[in-house]
Structures are given as C-alpha cells and as structure tokens.
C-alpha cells in the first residue's frame, strides 16, 4: 500500500517535472516569436467598403472606430462629397444637407475657394457615410481607423468578425495605424 503510494508520488513528480519542462520548452520555442509589442486591431482603409458595420458591431458604444482626415490628400473642395449629401438643397451647412448624421464634421473657410474639413471624434459614430462620399467621388482623404485610445483590444475584435471586406487584422502596436496620405 505505502509502496504503491510512493510509486505514484514518484510518477507524479516526474510528471510535474515534465510539465515544467513543457512550459520551459514552450517558452524557448515561442521566444523568437514573442514581442515586446502588443498586437492591436486595425483596419485597412484601402479595403474598407463603408458598409457601416464599424458603427454597430464594436463592443463599445459609440464605436472605437472613428473617421480621420488626411488633410495632406484632401482637395479642400467647396462642394465636399464627404460633407454634403449628393443632392443638397443648397450649399449651406444645414443638418439636412450633411452626410454626417451627428454633425461631426466641421467645415471652415480657408481661402477662396478652399474649405477645411475636420472630424470631431467625440461626435463621430463610424457610420462611414462621409467616407463613402469622399472615397467614391473625392480623394478618399476621409477614412476609418480603430482609435487606440478607445479600443479595448478585444482578443477577438467583434467588428473583424463581421467585416465583409476582411479589412481588419492584428498588427503590431509598434505601428498601429494604417493611414492614408502619410509620407
């Protein structure tokens, strides 16, 4: 009886050693893969088809995805197709004339005939309407990005799962944005 116990205790110790060795082996094997950086979710704006799911699928309300504006490639158009709906009653900034359902885009006169557009991330809900207008008919300077000051970095991003264009992927936090118009 006690011999039996001794034997089992011994086997257990062996097993534990094997377990520790497995852990160490796992570490040694994974060492070159391991990274000081986190992996972060990001979407590729060149793949985005502006389906609107970024607004609804994110676990955060409002979404961690926001519209950003690359001024460097913007045309500063008076008649911005990201700002105005396609058949505005007049070129004034009344809510009924704006693409943005929340009035998140600010239009400011720069100099004749140019206007500057900027997005207020506090108001943007990532519906991508402005992005659609700008990408379809303009320069595509408005685009969506996962904002890392908001994103919870879910292990499985809820938007990535339903993005019809498979635009989401895990990328390194070393360079966690995919910007347009960057040099």
């Amino acid at each position, binding site marked *: 009886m006690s011999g039996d116990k001794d034997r089992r205790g011994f086997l257990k110790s062996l097993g534990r050693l094997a377990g520790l060795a497995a852990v160490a082996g*796992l*570490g040694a094997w994974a060492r070159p893969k*391991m990274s000081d950086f986190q992996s972060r979710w990001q979407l590729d704006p060149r793949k985005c088809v502006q389906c609107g799911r970024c607004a609804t699928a994110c676990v955060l309300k409002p979404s961690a995805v926001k519209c950003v504006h690359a001024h460097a490639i913007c045309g500063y158009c008076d008649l911005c197709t990201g700002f105005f709906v*396609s058949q505005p009653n007049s070129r004034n900034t009344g809510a009924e004339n704006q693409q943005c359902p929340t009035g998140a885009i600010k239009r400011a006169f720069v100099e004749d005939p140019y206007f500057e557009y900027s997005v207020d991330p506090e108001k943007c809900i990532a519906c991508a309407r402005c992005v659609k207008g700008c990408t379809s008919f*303009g320069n595509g300077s408005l685009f969506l990005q996962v904002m890392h000051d908001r994103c919870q*970095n879910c292990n499985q991003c809820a938007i990535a799962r339903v993005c019809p264009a498979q635009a989401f992927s895990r990328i390194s936090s070393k360079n966690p944005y995919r910007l347009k118009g960057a040099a």
Partner: protein
Amino acid sequence: MLGNGWGFWVSAGGRFPPPEFTGGYRMPGLNPAPPPAAWLAWLDVAMLALALAAMIFFAHRKSSRRGILGVAVFSVFYFGFYRHGCVCSVGALQNVALAAANANYDFPWTVAAFFVLPLAAALFWGRVFCAGVCPLGALQELVLWRPVKIPAWLERGLRLFAWAYLGLAVLLAATGTVFVICRYDPFVLFFRLHGSFSMLMAGLAVLALAAVVGRPYCRFLCPYGVLLRICAGLARWPLRLMDEEECAMTRICYQECPYGAILRPVPEKEGGLGFGHGRLALVFAVGLAAVLVGGWLGWRAAPELARWHATVALAERVALENAGKVKGTTLESRAFRQLGLPADELLSDALRVRRQFQFGAPLMGVFVGMCLAGAFWRSLRSPPARAVFSIDPSFCLVCARCLDACPVLKKRRIAAIGE
C-alpha cells in the same frame, strides 16, 4: 447646377489635386492617439500574479472562504469590469495556437504570461487560478446559490465536452478563422455591459444555471480548464483533507463540494481487481476504434468547418455566383468585386485554408477520440483503494468549502489559534 447630383460634377476624373494655399494656411497633421503604454499590460500580469499569490495564501494557508471570495470580487472588478475581460488566460490559449501556426503574428509577452502563470501555479498548488482569479470562474463562484449534486457518471460524461471544445478552439485559432472561446464567452458581455441579444440570453441562462449547478462552464466546457486539470493532477501541494487516522468520516466534505471533486473512500478489495488480458484487448480495440472514427469524422467535417473561415466562405460564394448557381449577391461578394482583388489569389488563399483544415480537423478528431478512449479506460479500471474522503486535484476548483466545513479541521484551526 447642383441639381444633377455628383455624377456630372466629377465626370472629369473626379479626383482633385491638393490646393496650393497662398494665405499662410497651416495644414493640420494626422497623429492619432498611440495605444496605452506597454507597462499597463505588465500591470495586468502583475495583478494576475498578485491575485494568484493571494489565492494560494487564502486557500492553502488559511482555508478562508472569505479571503477567497474577496479575491474573486477583486478579479470580477479588475479583470472583468475594468479590463473588460480581455485578455484572459482562457482566451490566451488561442493566441498560443495562433503563434504556433502563424509566423507573422506578434505574440505579446504579456499574453504568454497570462497563459503560463496559472498553469505553473497549478503544477504546485492546484487550480488556484480557478478559485477566483479567473473572472469567468469568479463570477460563477459568486452567483452559486443552492448547488445540486450531479450523479458521478453524468459528471464524468459532461467533463468530456471541454476536451472537444479545446480541440475545436485550437483548430479555429491556428487556422486564423476565429477565436471561438472569445466569440462564445457567455460572460464577457456582462463585463462590457454590451453585446448581442442572443449572447445576452445565453449568458443569463448560464448564470441562472450556475446558481444551482456549481460552475457549469468551468466543469464542463472551459478549454483552458482541461490544461489546468492535467497540471493540477500533478500538483506538488494540492489542497488536501487529512490522513486516515484523523478523518471522522462525517461525509460533510463530500456534501459540501459543489463541483464533484471529492473522492469517496474505496474499499481495499474492490480496488484489487486485476487488469486481465481480455480487458486489455478490449480497451485497446475500443481506443483504436475511437481514434480511427474520430479521425475519419474530422476528415469528413473539414470542408464544413473550413467554411467558418471568411476567405473560404467568400471564395465558395463567388464561385457559386460566377457559375450562376445562386441568385443575387452578398455584402461580402459585392465588397470583393468592388475592391477588384484578383480572383485567383482568393482561390489560392481559400485552398490553403482548406488544406489546413483537411490536416487539422482529422488531428482534432483523433485527439477527441483519444480522450474518449481514455475516459473509457478509466471507467473500466478500478480506482485505487482509499480509506478516507479525499480531494481530486484535477477537478477541485480550490473553493475551500470542504476545508472550511470539516469539523476535524475546524477544531485543528481553533487549536492553532489558541496556541
């Protein structure tokens, strides 16, 4: 002039050169906020280690239910509500699988630590992680109200589901399909206070069940729990009751354990039955059959499983549309056409994923078959003789209810305080 919509307006090419400003306008830059500092992720690891240490102290040193529940409440708030349940050790096993299969994946140190620490702790002290460091376990621990006893045979059967779930989760993570553990995590939406209606219903149902059946997720489903079972089975200092001489045989511990982890005494004779040649052959035959059937089923299920991968689903859809076999389009197929990506690339990607499944799914089937065969073997083998009630460390979730309730141990604790 505005009446025609954009079509007329952009017909001249539609893309506008950036203007040259004359009035000294300064263009705003584009500098979106960086991710949270890296040390915050290490803070999570430190919290994990700290919570594990606290658990070892309260469960092993103090047998203190109150201390254990305190750590559980902390975990629910810190790892749950504050960190929104991500990343957790249970989910981290998928990151390990992905890192094993995909060389391009940046495998963060901190996630590796989340995976390893609870297993390492289990090798010495049993499943102290489950006791209440794991936010999923902690939540279920806190809602347990009136546990009912489940018959041992049912308990053993249900436990097998966790092995199958582990196999599936590893397969889907390694192929980059989806992190299914996160996708179907029944509790994370409570932590985030947001989620789909169906997951909310599922989560509420599991919680309601957890009020009367102790920790259903942990005992029957948790894929990480499978690894913890193995490590805890080898534990150096598992939670223990006592030796034969002292036990008063009150059965109180057996009644108290809501997780079916107390082993009843087994008389010497019953345990003496040998393992004849006939039985050995039977076990071997059943094992072989289970493995073969598992592998075959996996092989057959591979194309169906591969369809969970977005690329495979898309390629099949596009092929059907092109062949005129389905009417209409989906958002996915429209997106694909709109982007004008090369079709042969999609096809070769899809075929590569399909091959991975054709290789991995049978492997998974064999794995599950082996688990079933192992369970069968164990059901035949008579357990070693035990004189007293004892704890099965593989399935003990270190809640310390038994230690807390045992009258002998209680007396011992009081005596210790007296000294």
